[in-house]
């Protein structure tokens, strides 16, 4: 995800605009639909009503990146279907062209959603928002008021049942609670909206529901789905995607718009996402593409899509099928608020969710939590540093070039050096192609990436700011040096993370490697393969599996703890990601699991070069197994292990996947390491690529300095 978005930015920043007008080629349409929606679209296109179309289903994670990469190069689609909230970005990057249409037949909110500065970019297709799912087996009537949910249940809920399942830690799902108090996440003029009395009251209410045990703590989408599906939630707040999950079940349920809140009398209005067909600049010039877009948004196509994929159309002139779920969502969409398209919205999520979590965990009162969130938002939205004069850079580069040239000239005069160069020619014949390829495809891009660290601003309008980014990082953005989230604090976490991981990798890898090297071991091959397994499975898959195992209520680790309770050990299931220590431990456990096979194999390799006689001699001399391990094996394999350990340390230092996928930095970004912090600056905080690049350069500097230093200490480095 990280690189993909970075790619999008990069292409927007660097790429030349090459437009090629393809002649009679089919219209290219990209989408991220899956399942029913994909089949519906395929069927529509296959009906041939709109000429020849080339469809491409892109993973949603890569969608924006792919557009950003391809369209400026004239390679991308003519049309694409995406959510309206990305329009702000797309318009700024010039990825999308104006697409006028007759708004009469469309829901006003949908038209508003695709309108930026008075122009429409894309024709709305469907509307998606969350609604209230009601389990008819548990609930007597559909309550109009939120406060009545509890009393509308048939009988008191048994333990293991919840009243309302929703992802209470997500800002997206909290938004309806906020609107019920008249608040909004992003206020007029791109100001942070999630502060003040309304916001505080919404949080107090959510916290109150949590404290009463009416909503599950720590719920994510999978848990909500699971609770409702298994009939253990009376109500759930979720989107149409949950309905897709319920097809196969014999559950009797309804979908209705979200209720009102009695204290304010206002409706809980969810956020509305409008899916629209948008045109790239090239597509906007192709009549057949425009024809296709219009047809996709036509009444006929909308009806077809509703029937096949059960999505709420953005049109108001389509007859709703009898499907009650669809009708429920349609009603919900009518009251929903379109998601802001402003790019400032991107900076809202992270601080808001941190605040919500802190309040729900009880670590902070709503007022302080929201104030902190606002500070964070403002900090991120801080205007970029002023453009700096380029003169120092030019002088520095010039001086470096001149110095290098002088040194080269001096050395070129030196006959010894010339002889050496001449003697090197045969070697150069072996390295030349590798050097070329690496310079072109590895070093060049790396240097270019590093150069971004001298700029600020968002892609498209970045300016040169000199070392301002570095200064901001190293001065902890003007705050206390060791505040949570400051460079130094994150660095300390990163170092601890690296040391702990490498130590565990080493301990486990050494032990297993030595055990597996015993000549008498039976079924050695079987053990070897089974233990190498973590290495062979893609790491993003297993990282997600681990996250699932640490789930508070449903994870296997929790099940294990519960099982332990049966044996008299009293342990409460804990919320692994609510505290630093446990979240960090979960990360470490995952990474140890991923990394120990490498150390194990390296140990086994080192052991093969260890003469067996030495161990036998030690045994004859009366050394115990442990003594043999510590006194003979460890010192002897050490020299061949050191480089592997160093490499492992470097990899761990930059181990983005695990931290990002398992703890995601929780709680409150405390378990973030430098790389994931850099990622946040690039992608969740206003696309501050220059700042993120400065982080990368600092990471590189730290690692390079550290290895140089240890080389210098060891004086061995056979470079």
């Amino acid at each position, binding site marked *: 995800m990280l690189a993909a978005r970075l790619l999008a930015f*990069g292409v927007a920043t660097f790429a030349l605009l090459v437009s090629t007008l393809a002649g009679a080629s089919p219209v290219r349409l990209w989408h991220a639909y899956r399942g029913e929606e994909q089949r519906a679209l395929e069927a529509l296109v296959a009906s041939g009503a709109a000429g020849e179309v080339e469809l491409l*289903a892109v993973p949603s994670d890569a969608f924006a990146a792919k557009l950003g990469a391809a369209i400026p190069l004239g390679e991308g689609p003519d049309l694409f279907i995406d959510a309206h909230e990305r329009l702000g970005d797309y318009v700024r990057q010039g990825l999308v062209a104006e697409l006028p249409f007759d708004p009469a037949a469309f829901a006003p909110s949908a038209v508003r959603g695709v309108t930026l500065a008075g122009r429409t970019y894309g024709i709305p297709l469907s509307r998606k928002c969350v609604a209230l799912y009601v389990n008819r087996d548990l609930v007597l009537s559909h309550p109009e008021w939120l406060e009545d949910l509890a009393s509308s249940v048939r009988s008191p809920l048994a333990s293991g049942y919840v009243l309302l399942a929703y992802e209470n830690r997500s800002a997206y799902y909290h938004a309806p609670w906020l609107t019920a108090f008249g608040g909004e996440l992003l206020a007029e003029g791109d100001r942070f909206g999630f502060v003040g009395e309304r916001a505080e009251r919404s949080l107090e209410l959510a916290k109150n529901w949590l404290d009463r045990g009416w909503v599950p703590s720590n719920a994510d989408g999978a848990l909500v789905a699971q609770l409702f599906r298994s009939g253990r939630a009376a109500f759930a707040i979720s989107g149409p995607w949950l309905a897709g999950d319920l097809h196969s079940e014999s559950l009797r349920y309804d979908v209705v718009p979200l209720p009102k809140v009695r204290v304010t009398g206002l409706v809980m209005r969810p956020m509305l996402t409008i899916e629209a067909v948008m045109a790239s600049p090239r597509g906007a010039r192709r009549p057949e593409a425009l024809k296709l877009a219009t047809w996709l948004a036509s009444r006929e196509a909308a009806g077809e899509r509703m029937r096949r994929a059960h999505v709420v159309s953005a049109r108001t002139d389509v007859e709703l099928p009898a499907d009650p779920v669809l009708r429920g969502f349609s009603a919900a969409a009518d009251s929903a608020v379109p998601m802001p398209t402003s790019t400032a919205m991107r900076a809202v999520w992270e601080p808001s969710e941190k605040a919500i979590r802190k309040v729900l965990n009880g670590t902070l009162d709503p007022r302080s939590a929201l104030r902190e969130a606002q500070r964070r938002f403002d900090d991120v939205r801080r205007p970029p540093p002023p453009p700096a004069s380029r003169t120092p850079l030019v002088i520095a580069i010039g001086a470096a070039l001149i110095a290098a040239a002088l040194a080269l000239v001096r050395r070129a005069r030196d006959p010894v050096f010339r002889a050496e160069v001449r003697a090197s020619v045969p070697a150069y014949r072996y390295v030349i192609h590798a050097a070329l390829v690496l310079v072109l495809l590895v070093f060049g891009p790396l240097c270019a990436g590093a150069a971004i660290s001298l700029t600020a601003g968002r892609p498209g309008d970045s300016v040169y700011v000199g070392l301002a980014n570095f200064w901001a990082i190293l001065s902890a953005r003007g705050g206390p040096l060791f505040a949570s989230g400051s460079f130094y604090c994150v660095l300390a976490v990163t170092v601890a993370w690296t040391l702990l991981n490498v130590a565990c990798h080493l301990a486990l890898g050494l032990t297993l490697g030595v055990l597996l090297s015993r000549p008498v071991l039976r079924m050695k091959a079987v053990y070897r393969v089974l233990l190498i397994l973590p290495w062979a*499975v893609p790491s993003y898959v297993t990282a997600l599996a681990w996250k699932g195992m640490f789930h508070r209520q449903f994870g296997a680790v929790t099940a294990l703890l519960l099982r332990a309770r049966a044996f008299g050990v009293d342990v409460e299931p804990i919320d692994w990601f609510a505290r630093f220590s446990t979240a960090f431990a979960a990360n470490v456990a995952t990474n140890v699991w991923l990394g120990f096979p490498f150390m194990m194999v390296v140990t086994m390799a080192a052991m093969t070069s260890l003469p067996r006689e030495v161990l036998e001699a030690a045994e004859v001399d009366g050394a115990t197994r442990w003594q043999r391990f510590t006194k003979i094996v460890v010192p002897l394999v050490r020299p061949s292990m050191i480089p592997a350990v160093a490499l492992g340390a470097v990899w761990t230092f930059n181990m983005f996947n695990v931290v990002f996928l398992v703890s995601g930095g929780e709680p409150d970004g405390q378990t973030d390491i430098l790389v994931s912090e850099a990622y946040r600056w690039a992608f969740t905080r206003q696309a501050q690529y220059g700042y993120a690049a400065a982080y990368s350069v600092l990471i590189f500097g730290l690692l390079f300095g550290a290895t140089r230093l240890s080389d210098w200490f060891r004086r061995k480095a056979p470079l």
Partner: protein
Amino acid sequence: MLLAAVAFALYPVLWVVALAFSSHQTPEPRLLPLPEGPTLAHVREVVGAGRHLADGQEQWLFGRQLLNSLAVSTAAAVVGILIAIPAAYALARFTFVGKRAGVSALLATQMFPAVASAIPLYIVLDALHLLDSRMGLVLCYSTTSVPFAIFQLRAAFEAIPVDLEEAAMVDGATRFEAFIRVVLPAARPAIAVTALFAFMSAYNEFILAATLLGKEEMFTLPVVLQRYIGEHDANWPAFAAGALLVSAPVMALFYWAQRHLVAGLTAGAVKG
């Protein structure tokens, strides 16, 4: 001890297996990762994935995509190894001006967070007209695997006695012939293992593939896999089933290579 370690290693994998064969969409909490209501539906869903064509026919995609994955990764591993081998040999056997600097630079590539280079890489590929092609993907994968491969192979070559090459040269070979006919065969296990690593990293890569490839019939499997996870909803069982299918060839390779793994690494990985 070993059994405990095996349990530790297998447990999460078994979870993925359980998920892949469960009939439910979301996992139940339980200690033992056994599939509930065992079903092959998800596997069938993944394997049978195809698309409608304009003429109303279904086109089967999974097979093609599997082939793509295998072809791209194999090509990437081969190209990467071919680039790395002579360079590693030169580093192992020759002294030359710039060697130290070159090795430091190689080491440095491992330290720079890879994400930072993705952007400009894209532009280079564009300049080479390799966007949206399997060729470009092969080039990217092979070059990213080159530095590590060079380190591995350099150590492997260093472990081969110089005598062997000299004997070949006295026997009438040129230096290059000696390298091809004596050093390379002697380093076969290390080369195989290094190639396996290169293959694996290419085979599991998703981001570049998703961004570079513009046709469904060109997608590699991880891209397809990622498609099962939407923005709001995720088809986890299908994802898990796909993950297993994707991992299967790698596991087979590992199983086949496990005996060489240690031999290949003896000189290899232990020398960063």
